[in-house]
């Protein structure tokens, strides 16, 4: 019980730190966002200071004391108000993100889960047959592929499957079907999501493969594996119930951490495929100096990664009894 309390405490604390940094960092940056926005809206020419002040007030960048502003920021955050987007003016940031987030969550979430399953399975298999040809192919291949740039892979995939073969659409989240839970729309969405997913899937399992293989090779040297062999247990029982089960523990910890990396990687991939998710939005926000949107996306990403870590922390004692003891 104390374990869960402590983990919840950590979660709340890091969340608070992230939210606060999100407040502090833009204020440390040079340049005045309100001025930039006015410039953007009015095009070239003179800037009216009154206009800037008005926009600033609208954006919530008042002249008050920092602490007052901080309190206000927290209150706004609690009520789900993250400001107004410059790029998609006058839509609130929350709405803009709300539209993009599901696309990325599905894309990244699915590839992450599939990569985890595929990666641990391949890694376990390579370790079980270590020093075989299969192991050599997997290990060397992983190291090679793992060093490729995902943008480059994306371009190749785009070129081969979208332009040359024409099997999949090259860009967008869906084509000319009406949004809704109809078979044709779902098929359309899947077709559009396939290439970005494929691109992410080339590199995403690599980390799992390598860490699973290496920990499992270590676990295979443990006495309880030798004992299971000496006791004449079936190979499948030893490989799955004894070796893979134990080797999985550190890999699970890596799951949540790699989620953040994957979210970051999706910025480039979504740009390549013009996929309507958070990554593309982030690219747009950066290009347009859309501070409220950037801030909100950053916050959303941090919250997602922190939550994933928190969930893994909560699950961990279920799969490793030793953590329960350390917890008590």
């Amino acid at each position, binding site marked *: *019980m*104390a374990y869960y309390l402590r983990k919840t405490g950590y979660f709340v604390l890091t969340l608070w730190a992230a939210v606060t940094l999100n407040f502090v960092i833009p204020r440390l940056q040079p340049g005045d966002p309100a001025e930039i926005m006015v410039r953007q809206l009015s095009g070239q020419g003179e800037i009216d200071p009154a206009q800037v002040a008005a926009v600033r007030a609208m954006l919530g960048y008042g002249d008050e004391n920092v602490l007052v502003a901080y309190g206000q920021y927290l209150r706004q955050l609690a009520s789900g108000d993250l400001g107004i987007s410059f790029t998609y003016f006058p839509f609130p940031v929350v709405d803009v993100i709300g539209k993009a987030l599901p696309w990325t969550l599905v894309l990244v979430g699915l590839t992450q889960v599939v990569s985890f399953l595929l990666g641990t399975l391949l890694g376990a298999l390579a370790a079980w047959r270590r020093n075989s040809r299969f192991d050599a192919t997997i290990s060397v291949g992983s190291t090679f592929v793992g060093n490729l740039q995902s943008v480059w892979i994306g371009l190749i995939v785009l070129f081969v499957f979208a332009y040359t073969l024409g099997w999949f659409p090259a860009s967008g989240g869906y084509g000319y079907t009406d949004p809704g839970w109809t078979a044709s729309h779902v098929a359309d969405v899947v077709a559009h999501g396939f290439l970005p997913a494929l691109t992410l899937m080339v590199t995403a399992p690599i980390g799992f493969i390598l860490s699973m293989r290496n920990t499992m090779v270590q676990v295979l040297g*443990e*006495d*309880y594996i*030798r*004992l*299971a*062999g*000496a*006791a*004449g*247990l*079936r*190979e499948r*029982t030893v490989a799955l*119930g*004894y070796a893979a*089960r*134990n080797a999985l*523990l550190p890999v699970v910890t890596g799951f949540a951490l790699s989620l953040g990396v994957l979210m970051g990687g999706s910025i480039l991939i979504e740009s390549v495929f013009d996929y309507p998710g958070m990554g593309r939005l982030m690219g747009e926000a950066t290009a347009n100096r859309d501070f409220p949107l950037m801030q909100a996306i950053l916050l959303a990403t941090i919250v997602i990664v922190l939550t994933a870590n928190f969930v893994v922390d909560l699950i961990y004692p279920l*799969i*490793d*009894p*030793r953590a329960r*003891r350390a917890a*008590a």
Partner: protein
Amino acid sequence: MPTTPGPVLTVEDLSVQYRPALGPVVDAVRHASLRVDPGELVGLAGESGSGKTTFAQAVLRLLRRPGHVTGGTIRWGDTDVTDLDDDALRPLRWSAVATVFQSSMNALNPVVRVRRVFEDVIAAHDDPDRPTDARERAAELFDLVSVDPRFLDRYPHELSGGMRQRVNLALALALRPRLVLFDEPTTGLDVVVQKSVLDKIRELQARERFGAVLITHDMGTLLDNADRVAVMYEGEVVEDLNTAQAVTTGPRHPYSIHLVGSYAELLGERVPGYTGPEIAEPAEVPRPVAHDPVVQVEDLRRRFTRRRGWRTEHVDAVQGVSFTLREGAVTALVGQSGSGKSTIARVLTRIDVPTSGTVRYLDQEQHRPHDVAALRGAVAAEYRRNVQYVFQDPYSALNPTLTVGYALSRPLANYHHLGRRAALERAADLLEQVGLTPAGRYLGRLPHQLSGGQRQRVVIARALAAEPRLVVADEPIASLDVSIRAEILEVLQSLVADHGVGMLYITHDLLSAATLADDVLVLREGALVESGPAAEVIGDPQADYTRELLDAIPHPFARRTSA
């Protein structure tokens, strides 16, 4: 199943080679033969690298590449298993030959309850027509080894070391095997626990009539418990000793003589033909008489506080211990694990501070006392130089990327401000003092190029480099082979005799304390139960606990003496 009168294990002329993809072929086992009858306990002795573990793996048919059986036969009962494949072996495993591994810590799958391991093993061999109730059988087995069956629902990490080894013993007996192979089953356990595990094995053997092979480098245990001892040396079984005969007429092969002799020497017994290690006996050198006190410990207490949720718990690791360490004298601190030995060492090393009581350092010039916990400036530097440490595990005490010469010249440069060349010359002297000759051969080596005994010598030389007044040696021989232990003890002894260094010798082994120490402190649960001159404490123990520790030491020669 009716027990057949024949042997339960027959190994004839077994040879095992390691053929790595790179590097030379190694003959790990050469033409070794061994026979075990029902109910018999056969010891397999030899130091690390002698091939006994490879032999065991081959016998269990668990040999992994690049190991290959190149000749001979292995029979489990009547079945020749030398060339059987895995599928044919599987039904025989654990019912013909079971095993208990060295580190009881890791032999149970850590992520499942103990019960599951029993169920897996029983289910793997169960006859589908007459299913065994695994629950009931597991409870029965726990009763057999005197562990409360409630512990079946615990996880391995929730069991103590001794209990875990009993559980492993229970697991080995799950299918009523005809042979159990014990690979160093009690290494790392306390002497008292060790004795109880061995007694249990003997008792169960008498009842269940399984044959047993006990692999260990601890000659005392073997001579005390085994019926026969096969001595392995460089892959060969050089002698198959009858235990009774080993203590009376003595072994014949030079290596067996060395093994038995070096153990007997610790007990103060003689074995025909044994001449002792090559280093000259330092006992004959008169010890310096001037015994200046270096460290005075007075009423030392250390309490650990642990928070558990809202409650706090106290553990009194050390409870009012007092003693004085003098130059040129060895004080042994003896106790089981958890007795507070390490806490005292940590206080002396200034890693930890006492809760109450004082540790005083008497400086070299004027013998003024200084509180160790509050040392500052020049006196702190003097203390650091004058109190040096020798750690238990020579494998992790040396930086693996630095040469011996460098490791030794660092303290020389730090404490004596020697230049590079002078430091190396001095380092060579030090190596010769600890018996690593010619020193030139060792200066350029890295730790992994040395054996365990050589490493410990380097660690001792490093402690000596500062020319300290006091050396704290924490279980310096515990992780070494028995045949090397005597030599390291001699090196330590010569430090005291030749250099007038004082020593705190921390150990769980009363026997080595008796040979080395002038005074003995017996520690139990943080308190001193007995202290005094070594000869008195060992010869005429007053406390029950000291007697218990003494009784746990295998003394096979007692039979000879009393007969």
